[in-house]
């Protein structure tokens, strides 16, 4: 039986007494690429923030590697093993590529030669070795996204959170990133992936959760999700169709927090 890497139980977040994330419970096994799908305002980012301990849950628990982040020691131990790739490109434009990777990797306790080697490997992994001495502000959008990823990989995390990592980049860069995520996963890392792009989720995720109104409305492989909306498995329904069937076609104009 695969080890449970992440377990959420009754996870809730309320703003002004209104739930943005409403009693979410789920488990993610080691080695999965788990997709989190949902319309705007569904609660995906808030869920990610609670899992990463960026924000405190109103209720419920988060267990990563069978530990809760309820003590300083636990929190640090867990954080050493996770990597977070934010939706925003969180890098210093006035630092060079290698300086960015060095800065963020050093926060995970790497020093000296180990740090230097890790920086080199991370940049090579994302295809930026040749640009290691260039300032990040001069990078294209795709390069910045790749650097954004490199900054989270240097310390070889076992659990990775990708929050919409391909927003605003060209198809080649997107394709490159998706391949790399699959490769990381093949090396043993567990990945939690959020995106609006259905084809990405479909392409790489082993299991998908669909969120709406702060709740998980469906969880499973693509085939299992299709079976929720149709008995005709040969219909070859796309994930987008499944998603729209389950969440509705009404426009979602609010962001999380606004809805609350």
């Amino acid at each position, binding site marked *: 039986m695969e080890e449970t890497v992440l377990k959420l139980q009754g996870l809730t977040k309320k703003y002004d007494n209104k739930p943005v994330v409403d009693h979410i419970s789920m488990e993610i096994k080691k080695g999965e690429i788990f997709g989190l799908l949902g319309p705007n305002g569904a609660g995906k980012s808030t869920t990610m923030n609670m899992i990463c301990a960026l924000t405190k849950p109103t209720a419920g628990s988060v267990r990563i590697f069978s530990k809760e982040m309820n003590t300083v020691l636990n929190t640090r131990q867990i954080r050493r093993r996770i990597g977070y790739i934010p939706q925003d490109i*969180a890098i210093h434009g006035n630092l060079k590529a290698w300086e960015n990777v060095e800065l963020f990797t050093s*926060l995970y306790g790497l020093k000296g030669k180990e740090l230097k080697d890790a920086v080199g490997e991370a940049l090579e992994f994302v295809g930026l070795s040749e640009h290691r001495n260039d300032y990040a502000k001069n990078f294209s959008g795709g390069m910045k996204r790749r650097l954004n990823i490199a900054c989270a990989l240097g310390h070889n995390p076992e659990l990775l959170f990708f929050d919409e990592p391909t927003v605003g980049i060209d198809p080649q860069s997107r394709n490159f990133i998706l391949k790399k995520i699959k490769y990381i996963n093949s090396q043993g890392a567990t990945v939690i992936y959020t995106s609006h792009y259905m084809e990405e989720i479909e392409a790489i995720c082993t299991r998908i959760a669909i969120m709406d109104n702060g709740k998980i409305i469906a969880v499973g492989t693509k085939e299992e999700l299709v079976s929720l909306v149709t008995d005709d498995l040969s219909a070859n329904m796309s994930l987008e169709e499944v998603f729209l069937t389950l969440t509705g076609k009404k426009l979602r104009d609010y962001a999380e927090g606004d809805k609350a």
Partner: protein
Amino acid sequence: MPWVLIKNNLKLMLKNKWILFFMTALPLMVMALLASVFEDMLGKDTAIEKIAVGYAIHIENEEEEQSFREAFETFVEGCEENDIYLQEYEATEYKDLLEKKATDIFLLVTDKEMIIYGSEDKKIETMVLNSALASFDKMIHSVKVLKEYLTENPEKVQNLKETQLPDKDYIKAERLAVNPLPSAMDYYGIIEVVYFAWAGMVSLSVVISNERKNKIENRLQIAPVSKLSLYLGKVVPCVLATAVELGITMGLSIMLFGVHWGKIPASLGILLLLCIASGTVGVLLFYLFKSVVVSIVAGYLGLMTIGFLGGTFNMYMYAYPEHVQKLSVQYYVNRTLVEYSTMGDSAYASGCITFLTVIILISTTLGMFVMNKRMEV
């Protein structure tokens, strides 16, 4: 200690050309400007090297005038030995001479009185001459009394001739190094470095605004580092950047303007404490307010307040009572550094160190608390 975080944040701070200019070139410009603008005002209170006195004697009785002139000649010689130079002019010339500053003050001697003419800024010279003339006048009067006595008692004259005159070095003047005033350049050279040490917190804005704009704070929050490390990762580079920039400014102020810093190791120690205080207060302000601009404005207003309360050295430039002035850390810092420059030591040093240490401790505690709260989503 998060060395890589400190190193990279320091790089970000020192790479910003505008902040480098603000912290190095601008203080020099302000120093030169203020020193030249306020040179005369400060010069009023600096040591007077010599006094030039024009004089005219207008006594109607010729015999009396002659007698006075003989005695006055001795007075003139005595004054010269004490850097007071008297030169005779026509009485009608005094206004012209004073307007053209050909002489500092003018003495008019008539039958009934001696009048010293001088402008408002020559009060000290007037007082000095007044004091000297008072002694001279007493001497003249004593001689008159003695003359009358000897006329009535001629047998006493012989005794008088045998009396030895006192050594002319009997009365001496010594200059004491008590509260010597600095030159305008030294004064503004020192206090501008102090003011810009506080302004060093602006270096933090480069790092903090970038972290907020690019959501780097989230990345830092997720990393397995202590809050203390994140705090030091901001304060230490700010202190180092400010110290480097001020070091450059100090060096240039000495080379270009000859600013005299006294008791160098102690002065540098005080300035380093100041840089640390600036860094810790800076972090507190940047996390107290959401907006970087508001934080900078708040810092600026705070700096102006402590500057006006107690930062100025010359008494006549402000009207706050001393117990109010002492509420300002600038009161102690400026006085300590200026006195190190003029006297080589300062009684304000211990108060200065204590005040800065308290500021550092309080702002560190509050700063860490506020930073922690602010970084939570």
